[in-house]
């Protein structure tokens, strides 16, 4: 409290200024003076007093206008302004508060009262300073967290996308509710030439959800490369997640194998709401319903590998999406639904289906935010094998093991 303040005294009467300056000095503070509102505004444009004592009626610019100017000028930074008035007028008091004043003193100013006002305003200044400090600390903490998150995001993204095979017939879309997504899409080619795709949705959002997905991503890529079928891959991921994640955390996932030569889709679906085959005529040929609890839920001995198979007749697309898409609710609490997904897919007629579904979802949500991570993958299933010549597996490879 013994801190020395710079106090600006504004009064058009020279005698009053001298008196105020003497009082201020007696109280151990540093006085600065201005003889009208305009001078006060100019002073504040270059210097920052700790407090202002402001007369009301002055030539050139009165105290109310000066206060308004100074408040605008110092937006974001607060300094106490105390009005001085000859009469104890309620109207002046109100007018002063409206103009942005903090307190009011009647003239002639007496020393004890000015001293008390300064002490009380000092407490406020002190509080302001501490608030400012806490704010800065919070901002620093926030910045650090942001930095760590973007680093984690970078690592996780490269972990996944670098491993993902780039297939011209597979398109995906991801939207995370917070910085990091708990949804992942993995794409890999098995030695047999079939494509393996996994759409996984981990409980919750953010860093925790993203970390829970890591073992699944790793197993998916390694086991696909080694020629395992999706049932075996699902079993292995389930065991790993069951052993590592605490109860209550799990990863809903659909694993798909697309064999273009024999026009066969094989699906293991544990907790993914939408996995459907739409042919090029827009007909829903097949829906692969979730048949298992999510990965990491069941103890290894209770796990079931059982998959569903489908041979497609006409060219078409498989559309898979997480509950962040189907359960996205608009302001009227209506869900986008599987119907919303399939309708948008039909309208796309096989052209840029992923973008069309994402756009339809955005239109459904309007201004509502995404509350959950959302992911979507569309796999084109053509009559011709989707293999490009340079991607063809080298001759002499062992026959593909299939689950």
């Amino acid at each position, binding site marked *: 409290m013994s801190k020395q303040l710079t106090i600006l005294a504004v009064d058009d009467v020279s005698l009053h200024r001298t008196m105020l300056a003497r009082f201020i000095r007696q109280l151990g503070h540093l006085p600065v003076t201005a003889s009208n509102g305009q001078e006060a505004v100019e002073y504040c444009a270059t210097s920052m007093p700790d407090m202002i004592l402001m007369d009301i009626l002055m030539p050139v610019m009165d105290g109310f206008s000066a206060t308004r100017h100074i408040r605008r000028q110092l937006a974001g930074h607060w300094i106490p302004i105390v009005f001085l008035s000859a009469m104890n007028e309620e109207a002046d008091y109100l007018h002063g508060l409206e103009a942005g004043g903090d307190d009011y003193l009647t003239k002639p100013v007496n020393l004890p009262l000015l001293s008390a006002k300064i002490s009380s305003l000092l407490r406020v200044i002190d509080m302001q300073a501490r608030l400012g400090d806490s704010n800065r600390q919070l901002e620093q903490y926030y910045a650090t967290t942001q930095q760590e998150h973007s680093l984690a995001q970078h690592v996780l993204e490269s972990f996944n996308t670098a491993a993902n095979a780039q297939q011209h017939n597979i398109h995906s879309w991801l939207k995370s509710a917070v910085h990091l997504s708990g949804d992942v899409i993995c794409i890999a080619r098995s030695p047999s030439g079939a494509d393996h795709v996994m759409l996984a949705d981990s409980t*919750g959002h953010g860093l925790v959800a993203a970390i829970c997905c890591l073992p699944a991503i790793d197993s998916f890529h390694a086991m696909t490369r080694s020629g395992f079928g999706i049932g075996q891959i699902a079993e292995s991921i389930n065991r790993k997640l069951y052993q590592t994640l605490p109860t209550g955390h*799990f990863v809903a996932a659909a694993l798909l194998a697309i064999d273009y030569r024999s026009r066969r889709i094989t699906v293991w679906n544990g907790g993914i709401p939408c996995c459907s085959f739409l042919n090029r005529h827009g007909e829903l040929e097949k829906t692969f319903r*979730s048949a298992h609890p999510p990965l990491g839920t069941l103890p290894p001995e209770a796990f079931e590998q059982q998959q569903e198979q489908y041979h497609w007749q006409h060219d078409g697309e498989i559309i898979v999406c997480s509950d962040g898409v189907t359960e996205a609710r608009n302001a009227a609490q209506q869900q986008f639904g599987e119907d919303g997904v399939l309708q948008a897919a039909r309208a796309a007629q096989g052209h840029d289906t992923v973008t069309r579904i994402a756009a339809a979802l955005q239109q459904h949500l309007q201004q509502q935010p995404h509350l959950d991570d959302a992911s979507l993958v569309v796999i084109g299933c053509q009559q011709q094998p989707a293999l490009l010549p340079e991607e063809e597996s080298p001759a002499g490879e062992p026959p593909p093991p299939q689950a």
Partner: protein
Amino acid sequence: MNGNDSMMKPIVKLRGHVGSIFLVGQFDFNAHKAFRQASQELLDNNDITEIEVDFDQVPYLDSSALGMLLLLKERTSSASKGLALVNCRETVRQVLEIACFTKLFNIS
């Protein structure tokens, strides 16, 4: 965040050996603490052999709610108590069915 108005408020009722947790409102991550407190009360009560979670007033539940149910299942079985999910409405039933919780829980 969504604020407290959408937060679930559980009510615990006892009927002989059956203890019920009536959930009111959206059952999601924000309900974690309240749900845990309500279930602890029943788990600690030796007269209760059967715990029912009543979903009649729940319009929607998310995946973290499913996680809380799995946790409760683990804790009821280690306390040798029964567990049932009752009065599940269409939207709630749908979420439970997609997760195949119908295979893990007694649902009505």
